[in-house]
């Protein structure tokens, strides 16, 4: 069987394996949410100002909230299998539209964050490991620890004060300059979005940066002690060649694995950053959905983000297998 064919079969297999997980997530959260006090109608009525019990009952019937739980669940699952995530009670819109609206910003923030965190983490870890126990190493380690230990929102607010207000380099928040209204694919818009992306990305990546830096450092050190490094020396290679060609590639493996594991945490972790920088991501949407008991919406978000995680993990696996010939996908 050809490599690509095997890969395809592998991808398919993995998706199949992910299916029960995603379902389980939906079901678990379905029941959890029903354990919560109050429902979407309470919230709607509350927001509206007031509403008669009759009207609220009418709404509940409309949303199907008057049905017994199992029925509601079955109905929901049935819809899911026909790729229908239902209607958002609060927004009176199809969940899918709502979620997709927020999906791209999330992806954008996530990917840029991972790239930044992993990229810099690798570089810093490398620098630390190559200058083992020098001031450089110490400095980097301290930096890593501090960034890790500083509460995210604190960093975020500080960045806004410094880079947006005092220096005026970046906008405080949002995803684009609302006064401008460039059309989506115009160069101006892309630049605008990128400009808005900087602060949130940096803030969010700082936390993970620390993890990757430390992981990379440890991993480099471990690899540096391996026999093949001695072999490489015995071949008369320069230390740089040894570090960057031989050790580096081996040392990357655990970092890549970690990156995969982190994705799930990342989507969630972005809630705070999204709220601080008013980034229109899934995290914030989920947060609102939860507090407005917008069941369908929240389940939809969990569903999609779970799929997202699965997808990213898949990508990571494939990257991994291409980095490490010993791992054969399929």
């Amino acid at each position: 069987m050809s490599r690509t064919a095997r890969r395809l079969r592998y991808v398919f297999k993995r998706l199949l394996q992910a299916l029960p997980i995603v379902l389980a997530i939906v079901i678990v959260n379905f029941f959890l949410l029903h354990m919560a006090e109050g429902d979407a109608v309470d919230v709607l009525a509350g927001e509206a100002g007031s509403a008669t019990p009759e009207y609220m009952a009418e709404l509940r019937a409309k949303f199907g909230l008057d049905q017994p739980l199992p029925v509601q669940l079955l109905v929901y699952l049935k819809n899911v299998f026909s790729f229908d995530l239902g209607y958002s009670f609060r927004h009176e819109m199809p969940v899918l539209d709502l979620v997709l609206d927020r999906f791209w910003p999330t992806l954008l923030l996530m990917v840029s964050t991972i790239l930044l965190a992993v990229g810099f983490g690798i570089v810093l870890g490398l620098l630390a490991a190559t200058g083992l126990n020098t001031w450089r190493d110490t400095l980097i380690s301290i930096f890593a620890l501090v960034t890790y230990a500083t509460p995210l929102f604190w960093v975020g607010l500080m960045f806004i004060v410094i880079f947006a207000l005092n220096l005026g380099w970046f906008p405080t928040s949002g995803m684009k300059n609302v006064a401008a209204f460039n059309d989506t694919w115009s160069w101006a818009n892309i630049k605008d979005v990128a400009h808005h992306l900087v602060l949130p990305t940096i803030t969010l990546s700082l936390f993970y940066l620390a993890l990757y830096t430390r992981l990379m450092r440890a991993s480099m050190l471990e690899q540096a002690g391996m026999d093949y490094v001695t072999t490489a020396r015995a071949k008369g290679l320069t230390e740089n060649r040894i570090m960057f060609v031989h050790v580096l590639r081996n040392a990357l493996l655990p970092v890549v694995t970690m990156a995969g594991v982190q994705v799930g945490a990342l989507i969630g972790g972005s809630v705070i950053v999204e709220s601080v920088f008013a980034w229109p991501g899934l995290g914030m949407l989920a947060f609102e959905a939860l507090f407005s008991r917008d069941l369908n919406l929240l389940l939809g978000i969990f569903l999609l983000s779970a799929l997202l995680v699965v997808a990213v993990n898949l990508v990571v696996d494939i990257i991994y297998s291409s980095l490490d010939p010993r791992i054969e996908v399929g």
Partner: protein
Amino acid sequence: MNIRKWIGGALAAATMVAGATAARAEGGTLVMLVQPEPPSLASYLSTSGPIGLMAPKIYEGLLDYDSDLQAVPSLAKSYDVSDDGKTVTFNLQKGVKWHDGEPFTSEDVKFTVLELLSKIHPRGPNSFREVESIDIPDAHTAIFNLKNPAPYMLRALSGYESPIVPKHLLEGEDYRSADLVNNPVGTGPFKFVEWKKGQYIRLDKNEDYWKEGLPKLDRIVGRFIPDASTRTAAMENGEVHYGAYGAIPNIDAVRLREMDSIGVTTDGYGMINPMSLIEFDTTEPPFDDARVRKAVSLAIDRQFLIDNIWFGYGKPATSALSSNFGATGLHDAKAANYPADQNVEAAKKLLKEAGAEDISITLDLIPYGEDWRRAGEYMKQALGDIGIKVDLRYEDVPTWLKRIYADYDFDMNVNYFYQLPDPVLGVHRHYGTDQIRQGTHFVNSSRYSNPKLDALLVKGAQEPDAKKRAAIYSDVQKILGADKPVANLFEMNFLTVFDSSLKDHDTSALGAYGSFDQAYFDK
């Protein structure tokens, strides 16, 4: 004698202003803070604050109200109240078009009031409860036939409170999920363009708006920024120009008002009259005893709340009614029975009498922002001083609503209510026996019931004569002062923070809930 109200003059005035300003710098985009993101833009379904910020730019009411709460024309050019006060005739503007080009007619008014406002609107059923039928002899006249006089109704006709919506887009639809819910089509100065969820709502100038030369702004964008500190930063940075209803926390407003580029005002909330208060469960000990409720009221230093949590914005409550009703003479200063500062001894004494010493209770907090948590933390201490051990409970909105208004499962609840332009609209709902409606939000959750009061409220609602009405409400305030089914804390002053180059955004009594048709940048 036939009370006839001509308000054409006011209209002239409005257009004059328009003419005068025509010369001045116009256009530009106004970015205003909308917090939180509204659930929809169906202001005929919900009086939710954020909807109130955007919808009135799109939908208009029959009337508008100027800064001293006097009615000025809007979709109704003038109106006419019969002697017995049971017939109100509205003469509608001619040549008004919906944003989709359809003409606006009395049909729309009739449909809106009878089908929507008096049925599914949260407050409409109350405001329009006396409306029996509406006759529409022609396309530009709407005659409201009332069971009883309803003077308060005429205060509830703004574009925010009672928006007129297009019949042709709603008739036969499911009002809640019609396309109009998220794509509003109105007669107002601005047209709905797009709503980017999680980011902004965009409204563009309505080129063929019926008021000559208005609006002046090209565009209004409502931006959603969840975090308060970020909102402030954005305002400081000039990324947004306008934030009302506490979008900018008072603490920051206090700081920002020192900047020349930014203005801060408490105007524009005259029709809202927010009042913060404590609701008691009057059906169960310890708060079934008025003395205990009084003691609590005495234990709280209202000025402290205002100074330290709302940073000086607000006014200690003096009676059940907001002092803003002074204008209509309804507020009785002599009925004052809410001390501005705490009086521990008196409170302790009352508790002793009531035999309710060192009791412990749970205090629920309205989950609408940090300030209320601070208030709760303060009260926990203050009540501690008089020997009441308080356990704070802070739950999310749905849980809280259910607990307070459906399950009645609480001792004491910090909350705030809009008293609105007339007691009938905003105050009665707390105290009337008919307002003990389990499952309905923001009504009489204290379950206070007093036939004497009920009678007064009914009279107060129907009494057309201002003097008599004042007398009635004076009694109301006395009774409530004595029984304290709820302990009013203070009259809240919401803040509007704005870019000081933005002018005429506060011409309407509705302030942020106004149409902004005259607002412009003076650059």
